[in-house]
């Protein structure tokens, strides 16, 4: 087939083909724009526009109920930084939630992924089980766990009583409510990280481990000196994604604790919702939303930078 091109007839055919291709390319470009048009318009209307709007709103005193909007400059941000004790508690709660959730999630995910990496009969059944909460609605998961963790007559405490332990009122104790929300959230989403890490572990060439074993390394050394360094990029990726996701937690907390007791589980997105749609302070809530945006943006950029370094 390739010999054909060197003959004069072949060259002419190629030239003709090229000319036709260039006019086709012009028409093709039009098709290209047409194809992406719906999404591009949607992007402008539902992403870019609202993003600009939320920044503008954050410099206004807006009330959802009265429909008023007066420009107040940076007042909302000033209030947030100096005049709103609840905001700092919310930020503290959010940080506590994320800083406990992410390591817990990653350690559990890594341990279970390592356990499932060695092929054995029924391994896929475990994966089936760990992943099931991921496809389940957060609302459903939260409702069932609220049922299990209720005070005196809750399931967990009843089972604890059977073995003689007097369990706390999990969701009405400021300390335990937060732990309960974190633990059940890990159970909800850890399956996804198990699957991602399992993929990364199975991608490690078997020769590495074999070579180390021949040199007399035990399982722990193989894990610590070979697998863990090779998994570092995947672990980093999974950690940042989990961190960003944890900053957006809402339904889970609303349905389990409603931010309580005494605001002890009130996190940033819940506070945005509370200020905007319960308290009708949409201007102030917009300033809170901008805070969420800046934090997420910062983490996303950090992830890009780290991944670029990884590639280099």
């Amino acid at each position, binding site marked *: 087939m390739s010999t054909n091109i060197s003959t004069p007839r072949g060259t002419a055919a190629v030239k003709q083909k090229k000319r036709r291709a260039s006019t086709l390319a012009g028409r093709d470009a039009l098709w290209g724009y047409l194809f992406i048009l719906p999404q591009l318009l949607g992007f402008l209307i539902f992403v870019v526009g609202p993003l600009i709007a939320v920044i503008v709103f954050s410099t206004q005193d807006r009330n959802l109920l009265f429909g008023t909007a007066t420009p107040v400059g940076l007042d909302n941000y000033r209030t947030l930084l100096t005049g709103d004790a609840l905001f700092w508690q919310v930020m503290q709660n959010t940080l506590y939630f994320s800083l406990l959730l992410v390591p817990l999630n990653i350690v559990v995910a890594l341990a279970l992924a390592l356990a499932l990496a060695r092929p054995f009969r029924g391994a896929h059944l*475990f994966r089936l089980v760990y992943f099931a909460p991921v496809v389940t609605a957060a609302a459903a998961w939260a409702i069932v766990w609220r049922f299990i963790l209720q005070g005196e007559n809750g399931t967990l405490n009843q089972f604890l009583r059977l073995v003689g332990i007097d369990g706390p009122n999990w969701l009405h104790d400021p300390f335990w409510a937060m732990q309960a929300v974190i633990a059940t959230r890990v159970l909800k989403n850890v399956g996804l990280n198990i699957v991602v890490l399992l993929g990364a572990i199975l991608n490690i060439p078997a020769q590495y481990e074999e070579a180390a074993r021949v040199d007399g390394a035990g399982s722990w050394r193989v894990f610590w000196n070979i697998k863990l360094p090779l998994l570092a990029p995947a672990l980093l990726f999974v950690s940042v994604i989990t961190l960003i996701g944890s900053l957006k937690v809402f339904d889970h907390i609303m349905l389990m604790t409603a931010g309580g007791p005494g605001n002890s589980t009130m996190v940033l997105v819940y506070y945005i919702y509370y200020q905007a749609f319960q308290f009708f302070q949409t201007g102030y809530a917009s300033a809170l939303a901008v805070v969420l*945006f800046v934090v997420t943006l910062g983490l996303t950029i950090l992830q890009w930078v780290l991944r670029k370094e990884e590639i280099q």
Partner: protein
Amino acid sequence: MKKRVFANRYAFTRWLGAALLLALLIISTIPFIFPFWWMIIGSLKNPTEIFAFPPTLLPKAWQWQNYVEVFRYQPYALHYFNSVYIAVLVTIGTLFVASLSGYAFARIPFPGRSVLFILLLSSIMMPAEVLIIPNFFMMKMLGLSDTHFPLIAIPILGAPAVVGTFMMRQFFVSIPREIEDAATVDGANRFGIFWHVALPVATPALGGLAILTYLASWNLFLEPLVFLDSINLWTIPLSLRNFVDPYGAPLWHLQLAATTLSVLPILIIYVVAQRQIVDSFATSGVKG
């Protein structure tokens, strides 16, 4: 005895280690399985047995009428229908929009393609929670706030579908160009090639995206909470928390029955199509 079964002591300790690991793994599944089990069992108990001590692992008297009561207590059938039809429309719309632009970004060269692609991709990191206030005002201005329109239009045209565009682009990049050449010779235009040649090949990718999109819509909570007021417009997640007595205390037998009805169909589909569902989640990989 031991020596005959296991070639040496080393093999025995290995066997013991594996057995121990398996036992630990089985124990670790309890907090993942138990909530589903307990939800179903609780949904079949009567209100007093739910709180009986010691707890009963199976209902003493199976209360199937809880599942009838669920539909009498509030318009749960309507809520169910709302959730289904919204999720179906969102899925169809997302498949169309995402495969169109995913195909263009993979296959059609046009000026500014990579810049536009990166710009669009940037919206994946944008939390819906940041944009919900302005989106609410926009819908209110247009008189669409207490309707299903925002729950359908925003996922299809906004940031959520961009994940789909990314997935579809990755797929279309991977299929060989020769498949399209025959159609080009036949004089089909780009849309014809896309519709008759590229899309049929993309069925597996479309299937994965369809599952992700359906579930995302089905599980949505904040958006319906913000946009919907009228009880007849509610979707399942809003409905679930409304099985309460006049004082706001949950009627657990009903709440658990309604939750079971919302979770069970998804779980059955999940068990049947396990591999594909897990894979599509892993490739899109965005959740905390």
